[in-house]
């Protein structure tokens, strides 16, 4: 049993401090220690993307990151984007454009999409498809996921234009 380490991180805007084994996986920290269960455990080998979160502005698969690597980091999960009473533009788009079926991949999918639209606010369909290729969905055939992301991009851009 390795020595516990003092960990400090900001998760969805809240300061968190705790002692953990350095090799505890971040997905377990989130789900079991902090009861943040939006990020899901799909494949545990960073292929499926169900556990995707944002760490210091980058999309990360939290099932293969040690909590020690996230020490001091700013972490955003799907819960940090919006909630059932106040949806983020992407969340609204996935709901309205049927970008989900079983919903298990959805939190990781939307979390990744939120970064994609920051990296590239006006993506082509092709860029969405390749930008989302690290997140697997077994149900939808992706058609409505791509549609949802493009719709959200348009919505965000017209809001931006209106603000200017």
């Amino acid at each position: 049993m390795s020595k516990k380490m003092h960990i400090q991180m900001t998760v969805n805007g809240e300061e968190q401090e705790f002692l953990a084994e350095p090799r505890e996986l971040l997905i377990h920290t989130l789900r079991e220690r902090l009861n943040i269960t939006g990020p899901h455990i799909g494949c545990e080998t960073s292929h499926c993307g169900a556990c995707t979160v944002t760490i210091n502005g980058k999309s990360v698969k939290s099932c293969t990151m040690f909590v020690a690597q996230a020490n001091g980091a700013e972490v955003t999960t799907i819960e940090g984007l919006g909630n059932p009473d106040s949806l983020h533009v992407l969340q609204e788009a996935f709901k309205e454009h049927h970008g989900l079926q079983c919903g298990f991949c959805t939190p990781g999918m939307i979390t990744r999409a939120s970064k994609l639209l920051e990296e590239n606010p006006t993506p082509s369909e092709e860029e969405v498809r390749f930008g989302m290729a690290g997140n697997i969905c077994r149900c939808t055939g992706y058609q409505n996921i791509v549609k949802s992301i493009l719709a959200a991009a348009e919505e965000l851009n017209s809001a931006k234009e209106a603000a200017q």
Partner: protein
Amino acid sequence: MSVAKPLPHDAARLHVTGAARYVDDIPAPANTLHLAFGLSQIAAGRITAIDLDPVRKAPGVLRVWEASDLPSDCDCSPSAHDEPMLAGHTIRYLGQPIFLVAATSHLAARKAASLAKIDYQSRDAILTVDEAMDADSRFGEPRIWQKGDAGEAIDTAPHVLEGEITMGGQEHFYLEGQAAMALPQEDGDMLVHSSTQHPTEIQHKVAHALHLPMHAVRVETRRMGGGFGGKESQGNALAIACAVVASATGRPAKMRYDRDDDFMITGKRHDFRIEYRVGHDDDGKLHGVEFLQLARCGWAQDLSHPVADRAMLHSDNAYALDHVRIESHRLKTNTQSATAYRGFGGPQGMLGIERVMDHVAHALGKDPLDVRRANYYGDFAEDKAQSTPYGQPVTDFVLNDLTETLKARSDYTERREAIADWNAQNPVLKRGIALTPVKFGISFTLTHLNQAGALVHVYQDGSIAMNHGGTEMGQGLFQKVAQVAASEFGVDMDVVKITATDTAKVPNTSATAASSGSDLNGMAVKAACEAIRDRMAEHLARIHQDEPADVVFRDGEVHVGGNRLPFAEAAKACYEGRVSLSATGFYKTPKLSWDMIKGQGRPFFYFAYGASCSEVVIDTLTGEYRILRADILHDCGASLNPALDKGQIEGGYVQGAGWLTTEELVWDDHGRLRTHAPSTYKIPACSDRPEVFNVSLWDGRNREETIYRSKAVGEPPFMHGISVLMALSDAVSACGEAYPALDAPATPEAVLKAVRRVRGVL
């Protein structure tokens, strides 16, 4: 009316915020135990020595169970009572659970499970179809169904062809792995949360394992993170394990398979080899056809008989066959026990005849679509009877019109010509196109399963709670059925609450399978709603001096005796008038009669239809390929929810294409599955989907009296993936004279091999 509206999934708001709970998200009590299985490392043989002390001494471990420690055999089989949860001394496949560990955390249990010291005496494992045939290792006698005299018809036909196609299995890869949690209750009762398509079976198997009556076990399933047939029977082991541990320790117990364990332990789609002999004329019209279907079933029977039956039942697909013989062997091998998977054998049987059509067209140098059309069933005509090889009249065939419509919409003819020109000018890249039909039979072939129950409550504030035996795995069943309930009461959707599937609310349910969810449960809910509505109408008519038949429920109001009461007020009035506002509903599918041994009768209430056209391009130097365009026209009858139905079609097509292209299961010579994670087992990604993807619904109503004249949609679109394999075959055939004889999955390696074979290089 709420039906026919393209409303979002009922839990969409929860899904997009991460608030939708799956089994692993349910808060577990602090003293919950976490379980893991220790797995066999050989495919066949005996355990000669087993030392579990290192497991017991591992950190966090509370207790370890071997088969002999269990309260019963803890049978996990949905059919033949041949699946003990833990192997005794005899090992039947590599990955078979041998012992069970309960520990304080998931990780502690898994780590401990890897510490066992087990000595084995291996024997030669039976792994392949040929090994099983040679060893006569099988479940039951071969089943043979025939119509007419296929042998004579083939021998006297102008042309005779023979061939075979092998098609791989398929891992379900539901994004949420198998999971269950058991919570011990007072007096020995057990509450089980399970990610299952079949809560009643979980209840039944847990009750059997613990020697309890079924009323002592309650199973709840709010949702699954995907099922696809993989959670019809494969969740039994986890639920039983949790219940056994919870019963023995008095503590809650939870188990979820790590993804690799899920691959190694659970069953997959049956792989098949289909051999065929066919006699045809110059137009490609089939005179007779014989199929030999060899299905690899794995170590236990599970659902292999009905799966193999359904493969036989779909050997005709859309084609009128006068002389046909189908022989089916269900082979027992030392591999995971193959199980239900979307289509349930139908895709395999259908691929057999589609291969025949492709092969015949190639031999004649014809457009495969012309050969297909030459063999289609006719439109329904009173004076012209036509029936399937198993004697079911085909009265609802819509594929003649549907195919012509899709052919025109997809510019099939023009594109086929353009592709031929393009291929003539491009030596390295070759394109291919194919348009293939689907006719899929709807109903469980085990007739008694075609029943469903529902429970509906109207509360005195006018809110409605609805429950039925179907389970939600993403297909949108709950929303469709809620749309039925809202329509029956003429209220808004937000008035209707959909509650988790619960064996204490609706008993004796069938699995949510065979695409039957909406057909069965929609009708059961409708019956319950009608019972309550009739009681309300009768009471309200009495106090408002009106006729019950004239009371109308519409737009959130009840129209009675010239008055318009808000639904909530009407509910309150009925409550105060001592009217029962709760009802059960029941439905059983009519008109079914089926003799599975003879292969005669009417196993299906109706057929669902569709057609798809795929265009691909292959790189003849590497075998790599892309799907360039897909056009699908699919028949959902009068759709209950066109958005959800289109989602099923799009997802089904991509999953079907995955089965036939990149999803390859590889077992090594020792019976070890080598593709046991997404790193080696490739399911379609976002970047793999067709660049152009047009999906439309066929405008029509079900001829049979189904719920609002809709049609089942879960499985049928899966088989649109066949057009991708046929398009690949078309592209490969542009490389030379020989028939590509492309097997599935047509991985880039397989395509490259086929190209080289057709070019005469191999």
